[in-house]
């Protein structure tokens, strides 16, 4: 039942928010609902109500054999936890912002959370597809109504791009559905299909393109910097912190275990693309003057490593992906919060116009430095463990791939330290002269994130243990 409530709570909360009369009403409902969801996820993970509550199954579209089956395994728990942490954090950060039509804004945000939760828990493929689309639609509206100047054009591209992926995936789902012995969409039935190599490769590609666009993998990434730049920052936080994990998650749940032979068959080209993407995106990040675009390209490089690590088919790499999915979410949201604070306060996010903020806003400076260090995976920050393990996996796959991908470690230091220098060091500029330090509310939220960064950096065991069951399952499929 906990699993079901994780979907119902944001759904009902979201619908209720649409009818909120006032700005603060909408904010308070959504903040309350998101905190309640977080508590529920923690209850689910701790298993205090018994682990049987973490699964739910009922009839859904019976004629097709599609069932409403959801459940929490290690990976789902981890990603639901990430989702459940992200939303109250985002709501807290934007608590003092004014949005036109706040009821719709916060309502759509909660619907987005509903879709994400569903994606991470569904073990029926049609249901998975349903939630996949459910997550896309609120995101589309949020970007196109509350986004920046170029929002219509950019969001349209985002929508078409991901929608094409979704359609290919739908074709793939139906194709596999007809191949299942019992005509079912259940994950377990999908595992049982027998396909010829050509059929498997074909179906693999249908799925993979959808996920590759979502992650995104080079060269399917160009929608992302534009969308991150134009989307309202709270939505960007969710998009990059949580939503890109849909792609990685789907690869681990629906792609690799269902098409193990094809996954091995295509692994070389996918790893090659990922590694090219890492270096490519890192190089472009060096030349970005826009803080949001810099973070976007940095994120593409990080996701590239995760994708490469999955397909390197090494246990250590997949273990690293698990912990990194969580940590990347925390870190990138932290970076976006800093970007949001700077932009709302100073009205610009151009690095060339900033400078000298360290003397004006020391608390902000310290927090950004910690987040930035996590972004370059400095040891004892949370990202180190994941990157260390993923590079390890990639190294076992191929020494040279690891070495080339390793260049992005150096480049990451270049663009991240550039960012710190241009924002915080030097003398103040016209823009930053009147800057003030963090407000108490934002400071508390950021300190919570910093504590998470350091705690998981020093003792990553909780997340590693949480996801060990999924890793074992995925890894055994890869080599079956």
């Amino acid at each position: 039942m906990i699993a079901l409530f994780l979907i119902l709570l944001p759904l009902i909360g979201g619908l209720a928010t649409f009818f909120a009369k006032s700005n603060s009403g909408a904010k308070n409902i959504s903040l309350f609902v998101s905190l309640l969801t977080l508590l529920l996820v923690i209850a689910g993970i701790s298993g205090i109500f018994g682990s049987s509550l973490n699964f739910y199954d009922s009839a859904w579209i019976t004629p097709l054999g599609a069932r409403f089956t959801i459940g929490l395994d290690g990976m789902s728990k981890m990603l639901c936890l990430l989702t459940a942490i992200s939303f109250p954090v985002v709501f807290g950060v934007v608590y003092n912002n004014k949005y036109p039509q706040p009821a719709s804004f916060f309502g759509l945000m909660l619907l987005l959370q509903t879709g994400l939760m569903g994606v991470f828990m569904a073990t029926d493929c049609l249901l998975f597809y349903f939630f996949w689309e459910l997550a896309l639609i609120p995101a589309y509206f949020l970007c196109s109504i509350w986004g920046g100047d170029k929002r219509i054009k950019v969001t349209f591209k985002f929508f078409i791009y991901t929608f094409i992926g979704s359609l290919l995936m739908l074709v793939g789902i139906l194709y596999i559905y007809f191949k299942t012995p019992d005509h079912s969409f259940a994950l377990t039935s999908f595992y049982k299909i027998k396909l010829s190599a050509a059929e498997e490769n074909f179906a693999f590609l249908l799925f993979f393109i959808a996920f590759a666009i979502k992650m995104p993998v080079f060269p399917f990434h160009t929608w992302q910097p534009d969308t991150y730049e134009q989307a309202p920052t709270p939505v960007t936080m969710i998009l990059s912190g949580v939503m890109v994990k849909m792609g990685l998650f789907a690869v681990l749940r629906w792609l690799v275990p269902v098409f193990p032979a094809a996954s091995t068959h295509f692994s070389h080209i996918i790893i090659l693309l990922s590694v090219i993407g890492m270096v490519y995106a890192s190089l472009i990040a060096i030349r970005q003057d826009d803080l949001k675009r810099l973070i976007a390209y940095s994120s593409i490089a990080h996701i590239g490593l995760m994708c490469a690590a999955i397909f390197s088919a090494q246990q250590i790499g997949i273990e690293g992906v698990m912990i990194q999915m969580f940590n990347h979410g925390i870190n990138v949201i932290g970076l976006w919060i800093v970007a949001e604070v700077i932009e709302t306060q100073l009205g610009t996010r151009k690095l060339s116009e900033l400078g000298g903020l360290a003397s004006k806003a020391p608390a902000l400076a310290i927090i950004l430095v910690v987040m930035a260090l996590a972004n370059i995976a400095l040891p004892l920050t949370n990202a180190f463990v994941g990157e260390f393990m993923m590079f390890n996996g990639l190294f076992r796959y191929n020494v040279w791939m690891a070495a080339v991908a390793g260049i992005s470690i150096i480049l990451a230091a270049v663009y991240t330290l550039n960012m710190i220098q241009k924002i915080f060091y030097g003398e103040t500029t016209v823009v930053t002269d009147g800057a003030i330090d963090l407000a108490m509310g934002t400071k508390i939220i950021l300190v919570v994130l910093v504590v998470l960064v350091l705690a998981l950096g020093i003792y990553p065991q909780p997340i590693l243990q949480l996801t060990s069951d999924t890793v074992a399952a995925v890894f055994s499929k890869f080599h079956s």
Partner: protein
Amino acid sequence: MNNIAYLVPLFPLLGFLINGLFRKSLSKGTIGIIGCGTILLSFIVSLILFFDVKANGGVVVNYFNFIDVASFQIPFAFQIDQLSVIFLLIITGIGFLIHLYSTSYMHDESSEHFGRYFAYLNLFVFSMLLLIMGANYVIMFIGWEGVGLCSYLLIGYWFKNINYTNAAKKAFVMNRIGDLGFLLAVFWLLSKLGTANYVDVFEQASTGLSSTDVTAITLLLFVGAMGKSAQIPLYTWLPDAMAGPTPVSALIHAATMVTAGIYMIARSNVLYSLSPLTQDVVAVIGLATAILSATIALFQNDIKKVLAYSTVSQLGFMFLALGVGAYTTGVFHVMTHAFFKALMFLGAGSVIHAMGGEQDITKMGGLVKKLPITAWTFVIGVLAISGFPFTSGFVSKDEILLAVLAHSPVLFWFAVFAAILTAAYMFRLMMLVFFGGFRGTHEQEHHLHESPSAMTIPLIILGVLSLIGGFVQLPHVFGGEDFFNQFLAPIVPAVTHEGAEAATLEYYLLGGTIVILVIVYVVTKKLFAVDRFDGVYTGFKKVLADKWYIDELYNAVIVNPLDKLAGFLKNVVEKSGIDGIVNGVGKFVNYASRQLRLLQSGQVGNYILFMVLSIAVLFLVFWNQEIIVQFLQKIF
């Protein structure tokens, strides 16, 4: 007693947290007491550990599993043995003196920044201790990157100055290049042996690793050392790092952090001894670095730059020793160098302090009259680094030279050349700063004063150590006991020079050193103990003064092309290339659908034609699905 090992890094960590979090509310006095006191406590614990190890030998202490997954474990563990306690004593001992010195040197800073300074400094000591104490390569790497971070923060301590923050960035990035090598080496170890624990790795090295593995691992580790310990080609960050406060240069960029590479190789001596190729590479790179940076140091006019290039050069000597297999000698030179180089950096700080921030030695001169303690301790440092008989530097440098001679006479003569250069640039510096006539402004002359005792006491202590610190390893022929090598023997097999031949060589070296130093003294006194000195160089001297244009070369060959490439990717490939194709597909669909719309002509005949054609295609498809499968097989 080993159950107290964790206290050594814990004290500085606490100091970092207290000074970092409460820097706004604490007074400077309290901050100073916390900053220095924590390091003193660590030093005391290190002393206890030293005597414990001396009596009972080394031990590995496990705390918890840092990474514990099905495929492998990385324990968070400390290895307290002969090698690590030596470094613990150097780091906490000299660290304490430099912290003490800093309380006076940084006194003009506001209390908030004073707190930030000591927080960074304590964090540095903490990271450095992790690096040394870790019982496997992963914990070492945590400290390895941690000290890099602290170095970055302290070089850019005066963050309003963009040049300083550029220097900080350069240091971090060049270190990261080395770090990548280090990481790849760790991956290599893990994939072959499944463990990164020193004990297990060294035990399995000869059986579990092929010679290719060992060579690759040791070379990659050495790449890490090139970054951290500023060797060719990754040394150019260290001279720039002098942008940091002078005590930082003394602690991080002379005595401790930059010797991490030497520690790492000495720690991995089992692996390095298995790969003669790597050993040769280490020796040659070390020697080349020693000579190159010594030539640059000859013509620098910034007091800290001379010392910086001197550090690079001395680090080169240490790698030379490691490369010829004299690991204990390399470590011994780390210790003596820590004494006399920290001494000279702190002395330079005292001079800069007295000169009101002036670092240009052409504007100094004759300071011995106004700053006697600083001057005479500095002279001791110069004598030690030049290898004046029976100073600490004499013992360690002679041991290096003898080890090199045993390995290869060619390398030996190059090393002698580097040693002569060392004496030359050091005497030049000493003459220009402390002797001759004062060449600065009258106002500077008026303000000249000896530094307060918080600064001179560390100078005196380090001066004494620089003089007598070598006696723990005095050669037998001079009545020494070989204590240092014997102590390290359980970890690092010592190369000893015994017998009559070694004794004769020692006397030759002693005599040669005296002759050379007398010549250097006479020449530099005449040239540099002067009343007027412009310090402008032309011709080949200018090439040396301009550092062989290596920075310019790197910019032209690596930095700028990379920047151009990034710009090309951003503005052309990304925008017109990849995104252009994506948008092009969109436009094509738009265009195609506009054209297709025309097919809806309203003429029934056309519709029927399309219908028939479509049915034909469908029929073909259903008739033989194999066609499609074959088609797909061709594609994939």
